[in-house]
Structures are given as structure tokens and as C-alpha cells.
């Protein structure tokens, strides 16, 4: 009995570290390191490939999360609206396909085809990009802006304030942030939170 409660206490102690949130990802104002990931078109892509872009709307996304599905049209609309204005959407799937079988690269290819993706959909196979950004759930957005030669994080969080009903949205966080950047202003809201599916991390 004593042993078992000792064990439980120890597990609790370990948990108090393991359970700490991963807060060492990018913060607003941080410079972003470029990455090279395979897209659903089979080609490797880096942010540097988009020389003409003024910035990016990076979305950690996936095939399987109900919130990602709820935002599918809105993510496509963001790309449609902002790609030509210099802020294309770049979607990244970081889910471990072992834990989320609907998120294999092959499934990503068919999902992007079925849903007529115009934006890149990249496979973060070893999850390093999600970790570097500090992404936690899907869809999780990072708006980046070119400042001098660097890409700088300007906004982190949700797309808007109603995941259930696009027509009931009255705060468009990402649009507001990108509109501000296009006008040369600082986004008024730089960080928001939303309920979402946790990124399915590989077993340690």
C-alpha cells in the first residue's frame, strides 16, 4: 500500500513537469526560421520560395479535426482574399499518422484534391515545425510579416470568434491582423485562444 502510494506520488511529480505547457514556441515579435516541407503536390516548399510574398498566413491544420473541417471554407477564403495581396495561406499538418490514421500524407493529398485546395498543404512529418512555432491545436494560425529581410510573427491564435457558425462571427482576428499589416499598421489584437483539437504528438 505504501509502495503504491509512493509510486502514485512519483507519477504525480513526473506529471507536474510533463504536464507543463510547452511555452517555448514563437511569440509575437519573434523572427521565424524558414522550413522545407513536402507539399501535397509532391514538391518540397520553403517560405523563401515565395519571394513576392509580403508575409504568410501559416495555419496548423489537419484532415480530421472537426474544427479544421468547420474552418475549411474560411481557410480557403482567406487564401483567396489575401494571396494576391501578398499574404498567402500556408497550411501545415503536423499530426502523427500513427495516432491519427486519417492524417497520413496520402490522406492529405486526397483531402486537398477533394476540397480543391488552392493553398499549399505541407506535411510536417517529424513535427519539428509545429514544435518550433509552439503550435498546440488545429486550426492554429500564425500571421507572419516581412520586416526587412526577416519574417516576423505578428499574430498568433484563432481565425475568428465563432467556429460553429461563420455567419455569426463578429470578430475576424486573422483578417483584421492582415488588413492592418497591408495598411502598414500593427494588428490591434495579436494573440487569441480557441478550443481546438490538440496536435497529435508522437509518443515520446
Amino acid at each position, binding site marked *: 500500500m505504501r509502495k503504491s502510494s509512493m509510486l502514485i506520488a512519483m507519477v504525480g511529480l513526473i506529471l*507536474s513537469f*510533463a504536464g507543463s505547457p510547452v511555452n517555448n514556441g514563437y511569440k509575437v515579435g519573434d523572427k521565424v526560421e524558414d522550413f522545407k516541407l513536402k507539399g501535397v503536390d509532391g514538391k518540397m516548399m520553403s517560405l523563401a520560395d515565395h519571394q513576392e510574398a509580403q508575409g504568410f498566413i501559416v495555419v496548423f491544420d489537419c484532415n480530421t479535426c472537426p474544427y479544421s473541417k468547420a474552418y475549411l471554407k474560411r481557410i480557403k477564403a482567406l487564401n483567396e482574399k489575401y494571396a494576391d495581396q501578398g499574404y498567402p495561406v500556408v497550411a501545415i499538418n503536423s499530426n502523427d499518422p500513427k495516432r491519427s490514421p486519417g492524417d497520413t500524407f496520402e490522406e492529405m493529398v486526397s483531402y486537398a484534391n477533394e476540397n480543391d485546395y488552392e493553398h499549399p498543404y505541407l506535411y510536417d512529418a517529424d513535427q519539428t515545425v509545429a514544435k518550433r512555432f509552439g503550435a498546440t491545436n488545429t486550426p492554429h494560425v500564425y500571421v507572419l510579416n516581412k520586416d526587412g529581410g526577416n519574417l516576423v510573427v505578428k499574430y498568433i491564435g484563432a481565425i475568428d470568434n465563432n467556429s460553429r457558425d461563420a455567419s455569426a462571427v463578429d470578430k475576424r482576428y486573422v483578417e483584421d491582423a492582415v488588413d492592418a499589416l497591408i495598411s502598414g499598421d500593427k494588428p490591434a489584437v495579436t494573440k487569441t*485562444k*480557441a478550443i481546438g483539437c490538440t*496536435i497529435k504528438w508522437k509518443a515520446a
Partner: protein
Amino acid sequence: MKIIIFYVTMSLLVVFNSKAQNDADIIKFDRLDQLIKESGERIKVINFWATWCGPCIKELPYFEAARKNYADKISVHLVSLDFADQIAKVNKFVERKGMKSSIYLLDEIDYNSWIDKVDKNWSGAIPATLVINEKTGERKFVESELTDDELKGLIENFID
């Protein structure tokens, strides 16, 4: 006669079922906030879940088991973040799994307005669990899927 017996049996079944059914309370944030802040003698375990969340469904039986194992010491509150129009699905799920803990559905879609009020360290991903000592106010927030042992450890740390 047979028909009368049939109807009586059916209506009894309906009455019995409606009493046995542990339906979710649809609540707003003020009720959740009240629940978090209520003082008392127990260790309060609040888990955030949803029927669409695989890891949440996996850990729910551990919360049900803990409610039985520490019956006189803890209270378990399972807060679903399913959309409010999914209430029937939530109730069906609760019934099918025979869940007996207090079940809520938090109908607050403007997430950014309240997530920080539950815990500043919460990104919004679920499952997430908040444990509070009602006597001392001491609290621990965990944003990850728990194993049975991890949940026990979490609770025992508060009981000792």
C-alpha cells in the same frame, strides 16, 4: 388487455428512463466560473472534453473510476465543449457509457473571451483537466491526455 399492459409497460419504461438518464446541463461561463470558485470540503476535478475528441473519450473512464474510488473525497465534473446543437449526441454518449459524474455542456462559442479565465496556461486544446482543493484553493491545471495512473497521482497529491 394486452394492449393496455403494453402501454403501461411502455410508459413506465419512459418514466424509468427519464429518471435514470444523466443529462448534461447546458451552462454559460458564469456557471462554470461559479463551479470553479465554489468552496467546500472536497477535491474538485473538472475535465474538459468533447464527443469528437478521441483522447478525451479514452481518458473519461478513468474519471468515472476515480469518482467511485475516492467517492467521499472528490467531486467529478465533466464539461463537454461540443457545440450546443449537439446536446442530443452528448446525452446519448453519456447514456451509452453509463457515466454518472456531473455532466455539463458549456455553451460559450466566443472562446477567447473565457479560456484565460479557466487557466492562463491553457492553449484551448482538449483534453484538459483542472484539479482544485476546495478548502485551500490550491489548483493544478493539466493540458494533456491522462493515463489512469497519472490521474490517480494528480488526485492523491491533493488528498495527502
